[in-house]
């Protein structure tokens, strides 16, 4: 019985934190938001040099060949810094999907993920259909959103099919004819966002189609990855709010002495630790192929979604008026949490994945 990270896993997380801090922490997100993506691109290069993108990629494809548990602290750090970039989509969703495939195109893409030369985005919301006919397969996507559409090379789409799983992942080249992006303004300034329209035929030899079961497993891992990043975001909010409560004085004392503030911070700490615990369990369940892994992953995402919204709102409360300014980072964290509410599956979808069993 040991539900702790190993010393090596902790050390990897700390190394990523140092890297992100040296890059400027949330400054990278702010520069990206201001329309200067170069700092983010530099960061992606540094992460690649440190081997981070290949964390789940098998060693014979140039990756680190580690399990999802090892990715947990790394993803937390990326969330903590609000680092802009499709990390969960590339390092986890795509790597997990491609690792289970024998398709040579998928295997080749794994090496590109590990080297940092491939970035993957994921469509969410809207509608996606794959129509097969004698002329081949045609993809139709309407009103979907994708993060970082200008910066990804591959776009993943979860298309409805007739299978028992209901859908499967298709990865198409972003520069395929028939794909149109409308760049839009995101609520979360640290991301890029765009509307995606696809009007057939983008299914080419380059297109990678993952089987339904493999797609579900990749999405399970992706849910845990998003949850881990949200835990990182939440824990940074807690840290900043605690520091603020210790230093901000009113009525002759630090506001953290008042129970209303103190108790709110205690509840924020609870939410972070409970969320983190579900991430550990979800990652472990996936690594072990446990029979309840889908529920464990869904639970991690559902709980992190609810908790991060509450924690980020509480963080603003603790900061008082300061928390309502654009200059404070507090709104960036809140907007990240909000934007991801339906990402990786809506809260309702995640709850529906829970099995109501009598133990």
């Amino acid at each position, binding site marked *: *019985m040991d539900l*702790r990270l190993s010393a090596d896993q902790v050390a990897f997380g700390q190394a990523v934190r140092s890297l992100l801090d040296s890059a400027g922490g949330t400054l990278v997100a702010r520069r990206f938001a201001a329309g200067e993506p170069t700092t983010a691109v530099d960061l992606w290069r540094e992460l690649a040099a440190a081997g981070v993108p290949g964390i789940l990629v098998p060693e014979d494809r140039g990756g680190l060949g580690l399990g999802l548990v090892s990715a947990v602290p790394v993803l937390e750090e990326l969330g903590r810094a609000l680092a802009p970039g499709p990390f969960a989509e590339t390092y986890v969703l795509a790597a997990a999907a491609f690792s289970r495939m024998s398709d040579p195109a998928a295997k080749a893409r794994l090496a590109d993920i590990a080297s940092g030369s491939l970035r993957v985005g994921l469509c969410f919301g809207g509608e996606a259909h794959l129509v097969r006919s004698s002329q081949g397969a045609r993809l139709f996507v309407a009103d979907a959103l994708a993060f970082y559409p200008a910066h990804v090379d591959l776009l993943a789409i979860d298309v409805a099919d007739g299978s028992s799983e209901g859908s499967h992942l298709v990865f198409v080249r972003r520069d395929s004819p028939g794909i149109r992006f409308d760049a839009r303004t995101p609520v979360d300034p640290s991301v890029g966002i765009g509307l995606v329209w696809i009007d057939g035929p983008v299914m080419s030899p380059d297109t990678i189609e993952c089987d339904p079961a493999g797609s579900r497993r990749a999405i399970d891992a992706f849910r845990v990855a998003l949850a881990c990043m949200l835990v990182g975001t939440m824990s940074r909010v807690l840290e900043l709010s*605690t520091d603020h409560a210790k230093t901000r004085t009113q009525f002759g004392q630090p506001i953290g002495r008042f129970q209303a503030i103190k108790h709110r911070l205690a509840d924020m700490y609870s939410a972070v630790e*409970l969320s983190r*615990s579900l991430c550990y369990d979800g990652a472990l369940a996936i690594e072990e192929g446990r029979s309840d892994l889908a529920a464990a992953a869904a639970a991690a995402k*559902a*709980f992190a979604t609810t908790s991060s919204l509450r924690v980020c709102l509480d963080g603003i409360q603790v900061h008082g008026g300061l928390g309502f300014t654009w200059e404070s980072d507090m709104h960036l964290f809140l907007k990240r949490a909000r934007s991801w509410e339906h990402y990786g599956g809506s809260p309702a979808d995640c*709850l529906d994945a829970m099995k109501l069993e009598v133990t």
Partner: protein
Amino acid sequence: MDRAYGAEAEAVRIRFRRWLGDHLPAGWTSGKREIPKHPAEEDRFLRRWAEDLARGGWAGMAWPAAYGGRDAPLLEQIVLEEELAHVEAPHFVNFVGTNLVGPTLIALGSESQKRTYLPRILSCEEVWCQGFSEPNAGSDLAALSLRAVPDGQDLVLTGQKTWTSFATIADRCFLLARTGIGARRHDGITALIVDMRQPGIEVRPIHQINGSRRFNEVFFSGVRAGRADIVGEIDRGWSVAMTMLQFERVALAAQVFALRNSLTRLVRTVERATRTSEAAAVRRRTVAEFVVRCRAVEALFYRHLSEQIHGVALGPRGSLVKLVVTELHKELAGVGVGLMGSTGALWDDEADPLVARWRDVWLTSIGYTLAGGTSEILRNLVAERILGLPRDLRD
């Protein structure tokens, strides 16, 4: 990382499960869980159950072998709690004795105290209660004022304790008394062993909101305790009490497993309630939310357990699971009662047993957010000792 109990703990589980099957009252595991209603008969029933557990070698198994235990590791103790919860076994009335007083005497007691009391605690021949809280000393325990005044070889006790569980059954009381005034309020407190079967002690059951009378007020008037029954040093009992409180970790496991039972009951209740209801989807999602939150609490519990098993002290983090499990249980049980519809307004044990069960679980769960540290105090502890926020202003 792994969540398995391991072969040794699982072997203990199988042995204990078989023992329970053989020793629980007839029909217990198939749902006939009847405890005598009359207080004196109930006390006798529970006392016999404690003696049975002791005879089976299950009480005090964590004690060192030198004192009659078998040095059972923490994980095996957790397994026991899990199995007891699984069958909703009767209360173990000597919990204070075997889990709190025993380990405290082993750590801090005199040789004479160990020789005299430990064997009788282990066999449950003597049942113990804990005399800490007073009407004016609940969260602020250091404000206690029950006096113990020296008189020759004895100390004479005058005052009152409250919230003393199983005091009607208890043979001995481990209590905290004020013996002096020191520079700090925590100084001048002495930990004492008191014989409950002597004149001058009056036990008055407290009628709790769940109908139970498990807790009591205990009045002391001219009660004597020998100097040999001082645990640790006179006036230095606060640290003895703090040592004792750290042994409460197994009780927390019982809370986590009780929550699991309530979640199972909630799932069954929803299955029953949605057969005819149009709100099935809404109810299912409500329960699914609780499944998620209960998973989170269990995962946190096992993370903390992992630290303890591998020799890492939890320190103030120990307050966190108690805070979240008790508050979650209260909320879940409230939903359970709500699912009973209008019948939730009935206090009628002859009606649907499920209604009675939810009522009892809910009302009892309220008590657990108050006993052993109120949620408000625990939030203070988390904020001050983990997050490092400044302490409340106080005298």
